[in-house]
């Protein structure tokens, strides 16, 4: 187990560095914005203050008066479930379509797939607009929540991407000899292949997360959901740079953490990584 831990530790360090460097880069960027705290304090002082503030749990008040970290926390509590469920819904839908309709009902699946891909190509902001004006999605409550999840799961090409990715993965897998061997021996394919699908799927979803976090920004603006995206956008519009940086670093941290989760899954699933930490298989660039 020790090489595995070493591998994870190395990845974690790398990802922490990503978050740290991101905050420094954002800070350097803000040097060019007159009136930003960085321009006033200088980069090093600001960066020190920022991370001290993060660990002390106090980054001062935001443009709304509510403390920055409180706002980020509450925004995350709104946004992350939506993003998470959207990914889950997208995945469930894709699994249903790819595995359920797979090769068996090709005739039925073709128009269905075309339709879904077409729907999936519609930008999130358009779907949000239609939801608002045509379907009268209310400004609050479960109906809006589900609408947001659904739109995010489908729009901006998410569902399409997940379906295509999953399908490619499935096709790549079922042509493998060891799967043929399992088939001849009558082994339960779904159970045996789950670990093989889990890793590329996790990678696919992790890659998609970056897109989703962009989509959710637009969606929250359109539907008026008070989440990280709306707050980040408002922070930019209102030149509240501390809040903006906190959200950007937070999102980078989230992406990094999910990446770490994928790495942990890789360790759990793939003996090649577990038993030999030098071999990183397909590293996640």
């Amino acid at each position, binding site marked *: 187990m020790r090489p595995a831990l070493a591998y994870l530790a190395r990845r974690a360090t790398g990802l922490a560095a990503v978050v740290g460097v991101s905050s420094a880069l954002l800070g350097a960027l803000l040097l060019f914005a007159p009136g930003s705290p960085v321009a006033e304090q200088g980069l090093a002082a600001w960066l020190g203050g920022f991370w001290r503030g993060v660990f002390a749990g106090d980054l001062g008040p935001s443009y709304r008066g509510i403390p920055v970290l409180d706002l980020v926390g509450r925004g995350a509590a709104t946004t992350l479930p939506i993003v998470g469920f959207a990914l889950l819904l997208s995945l469930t839908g894709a699994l249903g379509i790819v595995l359920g309709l797979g090769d068996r009902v090709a005739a039925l699946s073709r128009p269905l797939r075309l339709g879904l891909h077409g729907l999936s190509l519609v930008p999130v902001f358009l779907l949000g607009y239609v939801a608002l004006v045509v379907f009268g999605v209310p400004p609050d409550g479960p109906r809006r929540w589900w609408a947001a999840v659904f739109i995010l799961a489908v729009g901006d090409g998410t569902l399409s991407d997940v379906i295509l990715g999953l399908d490619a993965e499935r096709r790549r897998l079922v042509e493998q000899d060891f799967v043929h*061997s399992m*088939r*001849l*021996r009558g*082994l339960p394919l779904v159970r045996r292949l789950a670990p093989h699908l889990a890793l590329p799927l996790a990678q696919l979803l992790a890659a998609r997360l970056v897109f989703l976090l962009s989509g959710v920004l637009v969606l929250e603006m359109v539907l008026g959901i008070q989440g990280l995206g709306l707050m980040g956008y408002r922070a930019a519009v209102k030149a509240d740079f501390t809040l903006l940086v906190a959200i950007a670093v937070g999102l980078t941290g989230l992406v990094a953490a999910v990446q770490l989760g994928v790495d942990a899954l890789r360790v759990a699933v793939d*003996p090649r990584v577990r*038993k030999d930490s030098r071999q990183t298989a397909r590293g996640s660039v």
Partner: protein
Amino acid sequence: MTLLGLHGVVVDGTPHGAAAPRRLLDGVDLTVEAGQITCLVGESGSGKTLLLRTALGISTARPGLVGGAVSWRGRTVLRPGQRRPDLRAGDAGYVFQDPGQALDPFRSIGRQVEDSVAVRHRGLARAERARRAEDWLARVGLPDADGVARLHPHELSGGMAQRAAIAVALATEPELIVADEPTTGLDWSLRRGIVELLEQLARDEGAALLLISHDLEVVRRLADRLVVLFGGQVVEDGPGAATLRPGPPRHPYGIELAARAEAMRTGEPGPATGRGATAPNGCVFAGRCALRSAATFADRCATSPPALTAVGDGHLVRCHGVES
């Protein structure tokens, strides 16, 4: 008794890079008798692997079987339009060409052999299953079976992996073992061992062995029966002792193969491989045929396909030269 029968099998598929489906196997007849060793030879692209994969339902060619049928112990198990044959799990064991691909990379060797053991012996206690799995690993000649069982495929060398794959295939106690060029990916030094292992296990278990191979040396020594495939057709089919010997009555392709094998053994340069236009309506071998230029029946080779003609006891050849 005939175990596996392929009757006029026609398979269409889209080769990599092709636009439209093409005919890959055109009316192939092949039977595998229980307990016998049957060898299938032919060059790359002749359809050897596709034939067996289609019969066992593990081919990825689309649309796949479009004509003919496959039978198992006289019962039709696969018809056109059907993807998977009505075989019981473990009826047939398949030894793949590349052992690196044949084993589940995420599962330990022991577990994979246990999976096979459990196919025939459901409800076996775990410990007993593990013991039998180790037995199998020992039988395929892996030293330290206990240690190997805990390893994962990536930790094995090619030769060890192929032995493990044979254990996985045979632990289901199949009546038919299909070995698809099981030695191609291995070092020369290991090849003989693997083939001998397969032969021995097949004889011990009383299973039929269908060996797909390039290696005429091996084939000639082992084969009870030998089938030569070219261009998606059976061009020669006969007893192992009689087939693939130099001199007529033989199929010219068989002669060419035999000559090459001989050259390989003696270290002399073999006959050049002819290249010529294939005739769409004629004999599949017409473009390369050495006989054709000299023979009087040559015009027929380009215009009409020859039929399989008996030339001896159970020995069939597809050539106009034999017909006449």
